């Protein structure tokens, strides 16, 4: 019996995020963490585990349930030279603290004539699929990506999760860090095995604003982010069995958006499907398609397709929610409708 030898150290996205924050906290005393249940509990999604034990309550601060207060405080602390990593537990809760996010955090650098930098990392959980209903299951990618003044990143696997977190903490601009609950590696939310990958122990960065080709192909480009990448990879497997070679691109960042990467791929394949768990209308899917069409419409062999969340509140009922979510079968169907 042969034994494979390796030094593979797999991590969940939750662990990779916590490790990245811990390494940056050791390296830089200005980095601290705030949020609801991020201290002794280690975060309801596991992404601040171990930090309270290592760094104590001064640098890992459990807050009251007032997002307005503690996200406003993070913006103030960043303005004053600190580098806060602040958690909005569910992205769905953004409504109460949006003024701090888009009028203060996103704009203070501009309004100060460039004199102030606001190095906040706002990490927040997205996504559904586990029957948590319409106020705990949204992605809201486009809501944040639409507003100028903030970078927006969203990893699909643990390697990118660590590297993007370190890049986000070191960035002098505000960064919205979206992590999808179904990829987090918390069993009760369902776990996508392909998000659990080898993660080097040492600190490293993944550049913000760079997409990655996660599968190469010739016949169609499938673009996704977070859960959409995993749906796309599974669809690509199914298409492969039908003799279709699909290329899959993980955007990894929404702002800055790596339009060039997508355009170059579509130039090769001539077909484009964009997958997004955020609502379809006025969303990421439309932005990607518009970017390609504006660059050169003649490279498209057929109209591009979107596989996104329908424009409805997210249902609680499992069959209804599963009906609404993007999935590999919908992507395969989208491809088949393009070549009919």
């Amino acid at each position: 019996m042969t034994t494979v030898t390796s030094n593979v150290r797999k991590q969940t996205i939750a662990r990779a995020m916590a490790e990245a924050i811990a390494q940056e906290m050791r390296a830089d005393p200005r980095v601290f963490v705030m949020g609801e249940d991020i201290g002794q509990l280690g975060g309801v999604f596991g992404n601040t585990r171990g930090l309270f034990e290592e760094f104590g309550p001064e640098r890992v601060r459990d807050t009251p349930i007032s997002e307005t207060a503690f996200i406003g405080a993070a913006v103030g602390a960043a303005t004053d030279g600190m580098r806060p990593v602040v958690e909005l537990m569910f992205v769905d809760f953004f409504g109460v603290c949006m003024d701090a996010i888009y009028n203060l955090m996103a704009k203070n650098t501009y309004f100060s004539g460039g004199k102030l930098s606001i190095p906040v990392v706002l990490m927040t959980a997205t996504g559904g699929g586990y029957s948590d209903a319409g106020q705990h299951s949204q992605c809201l990618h486009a809501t944040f990506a639409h507003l100028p003044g903030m970078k927006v990143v969203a990893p699909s696997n643990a390697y990118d999760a660590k590297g993007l977190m370190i890049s986000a903490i070191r960035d002098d601009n505000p960064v919205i860090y979206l992590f999808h609950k179904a990829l987090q590696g918390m069993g009760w939310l369902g776990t996508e095995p392909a998000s659990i990958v080898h993660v080097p122990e040492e600190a490293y960065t993944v550049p913000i604003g760079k997409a990655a080709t996660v599968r190469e192909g010739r016949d169609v480009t499938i673009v996704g982010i977070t859960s959409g990448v995993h749906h796309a990879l599974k669809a690509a497997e199914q298409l492969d069995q039908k003799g279709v070679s699909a290329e899959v691109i993980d955007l990894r960042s929404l702002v800055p958006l790596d339009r060039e990467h997508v355009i170059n791929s579509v130039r090769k394949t001539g077909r484009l499907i964009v997958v997004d768990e955020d609502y379809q209308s006025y969303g990421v899917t439309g932005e990607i398609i518009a970017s390609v069409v504006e660059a050169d419409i003649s490279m498209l062999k057929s109209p591009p397709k979107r596989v996104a969340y329908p424009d409805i509140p997210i249902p609680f009922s499992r069959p209804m929610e599963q009906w609404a979510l993007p999935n590999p079968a919908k992507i395969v169907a989208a491809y088949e409708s393009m070549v009919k």
Partner: protein
Amino acid sequence: MAVDIIVPKDLWEEEVEGVIVAWLTEEGASVRKGDVVAEIMVKKVQFDILAPAEGRVRILKKADEIIRKGDVIGRIE
């Protein structure tokens, strides 16, 4: 000498089953004593399973398999 990776009998109190959420290593990978090699879940609570010794991992129970306290889920060789 091989050392079993055992789900500790005192990890949780009730007589309920758990499940392996994920292996944080792979078949044949080398680990150090004390590395987290697997995550298991009981109800909605997650627990770390640590490597009992240094060596190469052999996986005996896969992710998503049901486990009980005291089960051998792998081995360090």
